[in-house]
């Protein structure tokens, strides 16, 4: 029997709420030799972790539920929330089962956190995971293949088993399938946003940060079937793209508030790792070369990635608007988030040049007060309607 959306989302919500990561603990305990590999936004090649017999675990901070006590002692007031709540998760032993922690090249805060982790949790294998900002195969590609090879060695060392090419190809295939399903959920929501509320899609994607890929793909399939089978009321909402939330996550309530105030979210950049590659990574041939090729030539755009061509700067957002038939863009960025906030004016310029309306606000993962955001988003939704029906 196919579960209902309510049942699927209840499971996702439980996973989301569980800051002790019971699922991952049980997964690890179920078979000797298993490892859990934590990673932070925005991207790591999860295929490699999977091929090493590991569970990739997205560590996205403590959200609104976690009371940060010790973590605050490590950060000044003018630094975003996610590193402090991540430290809190660490020092309260909530991540004590994690064997390897990966810190991708997203910003100086996460970069420095990689070194903090080495000092504070010396038993954990911590690695700063660099990605190339040069997109030539023989330059950035070569560098990246080395990075991937080093990561593969680290994972093999942690799991005590070599990571073979065949295993990696099989993992790539599984993640291709998963990403295709993620893209399908996004496309489904863009077509019928009333059938797939954003809070649900968000929780479904968050589950992908926790559960094994095979299980997540099953959840996505079931959700697609269940959401299509249900009939939900269609509101006269405006259609918006939310951008800037690719690292520290907004509170779930913020996502709900945007929809409640009259905006259907038809695209977003929460958890980019879920659909970083735009289409399948090649499965035949050298798997590291294939992963590198996908990163260089077939991956998403975000602030952490250099755009070599000025003419293309910011067009990814315009394309997202067009693809999803959105009517406006909401810049929702964590306070003190350099990548999001430095990128914002450039994106706004591009949107203005394409006559796409936008608003902007900041949040923290533990923001409680939603009223101002609701009002701002509500006014935006109304103005979009006026704009499109003069």
């Amino acid at each position, binding site marked *: 029997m196919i579960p209902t959306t309510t049942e699927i989302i209840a499971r996702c919500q439980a996973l989301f709420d569980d800051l002790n990561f019971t699922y991952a603990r049980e997964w690890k305990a179920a078979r000797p030799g298993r490892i859990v590999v934590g990673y932070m936004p925005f991207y790591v090649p999860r295929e490699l972790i999977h091929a090493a017999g590991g569970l990739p675990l997205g560590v996205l901070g403590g959200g609104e539920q976690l009371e940060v006590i010790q973590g605050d*002692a490590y950060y000044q007031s003018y630094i975003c929330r996610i590193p402090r709540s991540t430290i809190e998760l660490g020092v309260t032993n909530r991540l004590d089962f994690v064997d390897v922690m990966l810190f991708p090249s997203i910003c100086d805060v996460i970069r420095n956190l990689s070194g903090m982790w080495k000092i*504070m949790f010396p038993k954990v294998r911590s690695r700063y995971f660099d990605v190339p*900002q040069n997109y030539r195969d023989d330059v950035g590609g070569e560098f990246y293949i080395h990075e991937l090879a080093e990561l593969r060695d680290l994972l093999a060392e942690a799991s005590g088993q070599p990571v073979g090419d065949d295993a990696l190809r099989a993992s790539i295939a599984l993640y291709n399938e998963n990403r295709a399903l993620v893209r399908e959920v996004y496309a489904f929501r863009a077509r019928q946003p009333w059938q797939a509320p954003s809070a649900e899609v968000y929780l479904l994607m968050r589950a992908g940060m926790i559960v094994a890929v095979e299980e997540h793909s099953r959840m996505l399939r079931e959700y697609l079937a269940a959401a299509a089978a249900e009939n939900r009321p269609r509101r006269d909402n405006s259609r918006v793209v939310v951008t800037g939330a690719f690292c520290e996550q907004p509170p779930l309530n913020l996502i709900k508030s945007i929809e409640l105030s009259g905006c259907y979210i038809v695209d977003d950049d929460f958890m980019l790792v879920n659909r970083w590659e735009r289409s399948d990574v090649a499965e035949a041939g050298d798997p590291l070369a294939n992963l590198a090729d996908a990163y260089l030539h077939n991956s998403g755009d975000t602030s952490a990635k250099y755009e070599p061509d000025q003419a293309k700067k910011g067009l990814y957002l315009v394309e997202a608007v067009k693809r999803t038939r959105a009517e406006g863009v909401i810049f929702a960025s964590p306070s003190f988030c350099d990548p999001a906030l430095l990128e914002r004016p450039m994106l706004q310029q591009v949107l203005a040049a394409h006559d796409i309306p936008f608003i902007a606000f900041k949040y923290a993962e533990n923001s409680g007060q939603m009223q101002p955001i609701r009002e701002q988003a509500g006014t935006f939704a109304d103005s979009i309607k006026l704009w499109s029906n003069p």
Partner: protein
Amino acid sequence: MTNPNPSPAIKDSSMLKQKAMIAGNYGKLETAAADGRKVAATFVPGNLNELIMCFDMLNNLPEINAIQNGMRKKTGGYIMEAEKRGHSEDVCTYVKADLGMIAKGNIGPDGQKLPDPDLLLLSYTGCFTFMKWFELLRAQYKCETAMLHVPYQGDGKITKTMVSYVVKQLKEEVIPKLERVSGVAFDIDRLRENLARSARAEEDLVWVLESAKARPSPIDAYFGGVYYIGPIFTAFRGTEDAVEYYRLLRAEIGERLARGQGPVTPAGDMPDERYRLVVEGPPNWTSFREFWKMFYDEGAVVVASTYSKVGGLYDLGFRHDPDRPLESLAEYCLGCYTNRNLPARIDLIAQYMEEYQADGLLINSIKSCNSFSAGQLLVLREIERRTGKPAAFIESDLVDPRYFSPANIKNRLESYFQMVDQRRAGSKSAARAA
């Protein structure tokens, strides 16, 4: 007592030389178009001055413009201008000071119009913001941009792969663009000559910085240090002028050392060295003199600082090497202070604490700068734990006057100096009891 009417900081011949060099470079920038000179804009950490010079190009450094404008108290207005134009109050104020200056006509610190760059040479070393900063400038100038991605020393070491990646980018990306923009063909022998001059200047700079191991230290390695690093961090590394500057400086400091003198301050010679500190983090520029005074009034001398390593770390032995020109440029970029991981930064500070016989560590945490600031509270704890010496934490900003609170900082410093006194008294009585 110090002189209540501070005279200009340091009037030795090295200082005069440096002033002339800076003025000369701004002068050249101002007449660049008339003189047919091409201009590269680039950053201090990972700057490739020796390479830029091979193409007869001038070097304009937005960070230095922001600093100079900060010291002239112009940045407050520029930052507000940038914020009015949609730049967030949360981001690096160097960026906003630069964008605000451009928005208001791009008048440089000396009151003359700065040229539009012909090339943005984006050396992405030690700070993520650099990339966004130059994307913002590129949107403004629509000029050619060369990206040099310098990988971070995540595991605290420079690997062969990193070096070869940077060298490849130099060969395939940076040098061809410099050739195209300048119309000058690359001559590796010219680069070697420039690098040989760099190494000579670096040798003398290291000697000057290490003179602070003496008691009393003849230099202040932070407030004075920012002057000493000026030429080598900016448009002069690799020039004969820089060689000459460091030769003069070394001779002057040598004399001070021989005479047992302390550092020069804006109030004249510092008579009495009471506290020896290591400082982590950049200074505040808008109230630089006021900030410095809080130290020399108390007899506090900074004997080593990390900020003076941000545009190149030479005291661990690295020198530009004419025999390995591109590789050594790569290693230079990879080795800059903020490109080192946090454990390596802590090791360096701990080493300074010991080698320079410091009484403690002071962290000036900069609101703007995540590259420096994120993690500094752990740095503080670790240094206290490893050295047993007291550490203190103050907060300010680089060029945003809104975030420099003199009363708070002064209070904090005073209690810190008391803490150092108590710690000393404690260790003396413990030694007596033993």
